[in-house]
């Protein structure tokens, strides 16, 4: 079983890539579990035709602690879980993630025979709770989603700092392109600067957004589209990745210098 956690700047496309990756890995015959860790509980929405599933923390609040009642089967047999959490502006979402992960019980994944577990984690590693999925016993390695834009790389570097502090391995970076100049090259150079690697890039493509509007992954709406081959390639590279290592974050000045060097 391989467990990975997906991190990246808010709105960069973590959930899009996680759900598309999940369904394409499933179509290769793998048992996939996608765990959405965002209190907005929208990571798995494209597996369920735009519908929300019951969240772990809502069920926990009602006294339900059986993981079987928290896992739902979505498109292409991918199993989906949403951690859930407090409404915006109240409570502590980070604590929610820790409690939900404990309730789900990591031994459960092994018992159920999953091949791949993907944690889709919101935003940066803003507090201890958000680092939960990256800790011992959960994700084997982390993947960062970024575009070539400064703020996205800046956020990626901040996550790399968190991984460095926690001594957690980074599997690599996946580019989610925003159509800026020499974007792939920028991301690749940054990845190498922090002693990591660029796994692959997903080009900007309206079919992703068209699918999402219908609450679907690209595989469901456009089964024959080449994008699916791209997601399968990303999945294969992640599963066979032997180059994971703790990243060495760089300074803001160095980021500016790298990105500026391409203009």
């Amino acid at each position: 079983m391989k467990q990975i956690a997906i991190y990246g700047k808010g709105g960069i496309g973590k959930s899009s890539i996680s759900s598309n990756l999940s369904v394409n890995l499933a179509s290769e015959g793998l048992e996939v579990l996608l765990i959405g860790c965002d209190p907005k509980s929208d990571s798995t929405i494209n597996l369920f035709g735009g519908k929300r599933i019951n969240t772990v923390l809502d069920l926990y609040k009602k006294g339900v602690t059986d993981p079987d009642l928290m896992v739902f089967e979505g498109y292409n047999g991918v199993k989906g879980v949403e951690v859930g959490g407090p409404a915006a502006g109240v409570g502590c979402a980070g604590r929610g993630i820790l409690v939900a992960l404990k309730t789900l019980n990591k031994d459960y994944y092994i018992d159920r025979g999953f091949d791949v577990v993907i944690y889709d984690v919101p935003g940066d590693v803003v507090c201890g709770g958000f680092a939960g999925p990256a800790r011992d016993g959960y994700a084997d390695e982390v993947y960062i989603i970024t575009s070539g834009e400064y703020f996205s790389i800046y956020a990626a570097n901040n996550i790399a700092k968190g991984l460095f502090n926690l001594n957690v391995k980074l599997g690599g970076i996946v580019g989610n392109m925003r159509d800026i100049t020499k974007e792939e090259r920028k991301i690749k150079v940054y990845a190498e600067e922090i002693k990591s690697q660029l796994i692959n890039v997903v080009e900007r493509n309206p079919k992703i957004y068209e699918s999402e509007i219908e609450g679907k992954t690209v595989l469901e709406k456009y089964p024959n589209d080449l994008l699916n081959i791209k997601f399968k390639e990303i999945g294969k590279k992640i599963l066979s990745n032997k180059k994971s290592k703790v990243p060495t974050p760089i300074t803001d000045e160095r980021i500016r210098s790298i990105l500026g060097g391409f203009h």
Partner: protein
Amino acid sequence: MNILTPRPNPIVAALYTLRDLDVDVAILHGPSGCGFRAARLLEEDGMVVVTTSMTEEDLIFGASDKLIEVLTEANALFSPKTIGVVGSCVSMIIGENVKKALIDSGLNNKAFFVEIHGCMGANTRGAIETLKAAMDFGLIGEKEFKRQENMLLLATEVESNKGMAKSKYIKPSRGTDLKIVADYITNLLKENKKIAVVLNAKKETVYLFADILLAINLASKKLGGSVINVGNLSTEVGLLRIKRYAEDIINNLNSNNVAINFISGGMDEYPIAGKNAIDYLKDKDFDLMVAVGIPQALPLIDKESIAVTNGPREVPPLEEAGYKYVTVEIASHSTVMGTREIVFSELGEAIRNSAGIQ
């Protein structure tokens, strides 16, 4: 039911359980004031308790470095064989990675972590989590863990059904005046009546509650009457420290020529030992039962009975249960820490005074 009455908390229960396990140093990863009253008492009992003294800044920036520092300092200062790190509300809410801090400190071969905070339910949860962590660390076996877990769950049940967690709010009460209770007991002895004393004490509180059993026996020797002694004083059950408590009490009683007629269980078996005691007494002839320690764990009997508790909030439910008198030993924990001898109890003193024993 949302119970309004403040009750013992899991963090303090975790600290007490570390003491039971003969851990040398407990580090409370939290604010300096968290659990401080319990910490003082536990230090009197031989376990060093220190704190990471988390501050507002630590809540914002995390306090793993501080924990590593305290671990290193405690190791240098006290040369402990075993260290227990206990969580608190704040450190657990901010998601402190304590296991990593233990590894980074280089002390993970002698230190283990109890993942607990104050919002995790009954205090017994703190004890269970500590025992589980101790099992994972290799201090106790799985069989002993399961036995103690079962006892703690039964203890929670006793409090919910018959104790201070029975209703929404229970007003603390001192119950009946000690002198009235003492005189009642001594008058029965003067009338040559028979008293059954059931000592059903929880761990170290036995050093206090055993004094009541002792005082009734001494009063009987002077005034008349007779006594049946029942106690959860098994020297075969529980952790080494707990068995030692039972040995101490039996030795103390022997030196006063007082014998226990029936051992109802171990010192940590108070949730079931009460039933064993009543099963033993059901065919016996006696005029009054005096239940001391955790009387709420005893099944009700159709005989005149007196209950002696150390919880002022246990008084109303015990009175409702039908005890003729319920009275309180208020200073139980503060007087027994660090002792190896039976200490004077308030009721024991009142009985001695009433019987004219110097």
